[in-house]
């Protein structure tokens, strides 16, 4: 084959269909914003309604959003939201929950231990590893600064 990889890559780029950027971004904005508003409402219910402290209300909000996302994923609705909204459903914490629930459901067939147990964090694992990992680093740096300063 005489064609170079670079020349072929350019040909592919030329002939590839372009995705509608504006529509996708607008949908992500709208759905993402809506999920955040729902989060704010839930937070207010715990803060003002039940008079919980800020920290507790925040934790409760996270748990509620995760629950809702898990329910919608189980019912087969969240993947449709995701198809429509893209990043609007991936970026909020509900996306993290969906990424945890989806493989758990998918690999149920392989059993409770090596199926659900092993695969539940296949997709959301990286977020935990890098999130917690970087927070550890941050803490260590802060502790070091304390010692030096």
């Amino acid at each position, binding site marked *: 084959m005489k064609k170079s990889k670079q020349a072929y890559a350019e040909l*592919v780029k030329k*002939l590839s269909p372009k995705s509608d950027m504006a529509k996708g971004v607008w949908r992500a904005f709208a759905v993402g914003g809506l999920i955040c508003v729902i989060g704010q409402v839930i937070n207010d219910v715990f803060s003002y309604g039940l008079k919980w402290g800020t920290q507790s209300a925040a934790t409760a909000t996270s748990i509620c959003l995760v629950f809702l996302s898990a329910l919608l994923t189980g019912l087969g609705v*969240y*993947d449709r939201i995701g198809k429509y*909204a893209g990043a609007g459903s*991936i970026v909020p914490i509900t996306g993290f929950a969906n990424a945890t629930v989806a493989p758990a459901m998918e690999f149920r067939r392989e059993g409770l231990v090596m199926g659900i147990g092993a695969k539940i964090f296949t997709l959301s694992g990286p977020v935990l590893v890098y999130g917690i990992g970087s927070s550890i680093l941050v803490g260590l740096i802060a502790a070091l600064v304390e010692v030096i300063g």
Partner: protein
Amino acid sequence: MSKRLGAQTVALPSRPGILAWASTAGQKEKEGPYGEKFDSIIPDELNGQQSFEGAERAMLEETIVRCAQKANKALGDIQMLLCGDLLNQIISAGFAARNLGIPFYGLYGACSTMAESLSIGGMIADGGFADAMVCATCSHFCTAERQYRAPLELGNQRTPTAQWTVTGAGAVMLAGGEQARHAGAVLTHATCGRVIDLGISDANNMGAAMAPAGCDTLANHFRDTNRGFDDYDLVVTGDLGHLGRDLLIELLKERKITVREDKLFDCGCHIFDARQDAHSGGSGCGCAASMLCAHLLPEVASGRLGRILFMATGALLSPTTTMQGESIPGVAHAVVIEHEGGKRR
């Protein structure tokens, strides 16, 4: 007379006959333009089984059994099963063979498996090594997503170049020698493809990854047989999809091959229509196989199509290679299928 024609093509002078064929598909395929033509449609993605893998296996078995029935043969009369699928360790093929008890050669050509099995089957029949064989393959949307892409309930967006793995199966009964006399369609040539990789590493762009292999095999077939688009009623590709088909046309033109676009029929482009949101079209072994058995073979056997080239392309990647940053190699195999009774009408 030597049966080898050039670097990659062989002639099959005894013209192995295609005695019977059977096709099965899923609900989405039923709603497509060729929905009415499939012999059987599975009721849902689980097909009465406990898992998607079981569903795929049952679909494949059912298709092979029906093919044997249509050929008026018992399963015990079938001398060889040449079969493969997309799953790791080709479990659909292997487990179906276990249940059916037919001597089994497992094949892996990814989405090129239908053409690969017909090529090898044709050579076996022409060589006099067997006179009743089944060539079959299948794919299932859910098992492919599970293995290659993402869990079904994940809220991800598919890219514009992504293709939809067809839930479908096709089985063909090949006969050599005396048996072949009753066939309405015959195999006359087979071209073995080389693996071509032009550096595409996007696993969501199979069409672009496979088009170079399709071009290479087609060009070599034409060169070996001294033929062109004009010698065929249709040049069929398996699952290049819309983008892959466009790329194939460009690549052929760059090779100075005269392309008759009206004769270039891609199964992936036709199995779903635009309303079904399959983006770049259908894909999977079952795409080419089910379309061959539902639509193309009946057309050839009846004489409405005199001679077609059936070329299925496959992408030889695995999730591991993609994650390790490798690009995607492609392969394409081709067979010539003619209406028995000679050349075109």
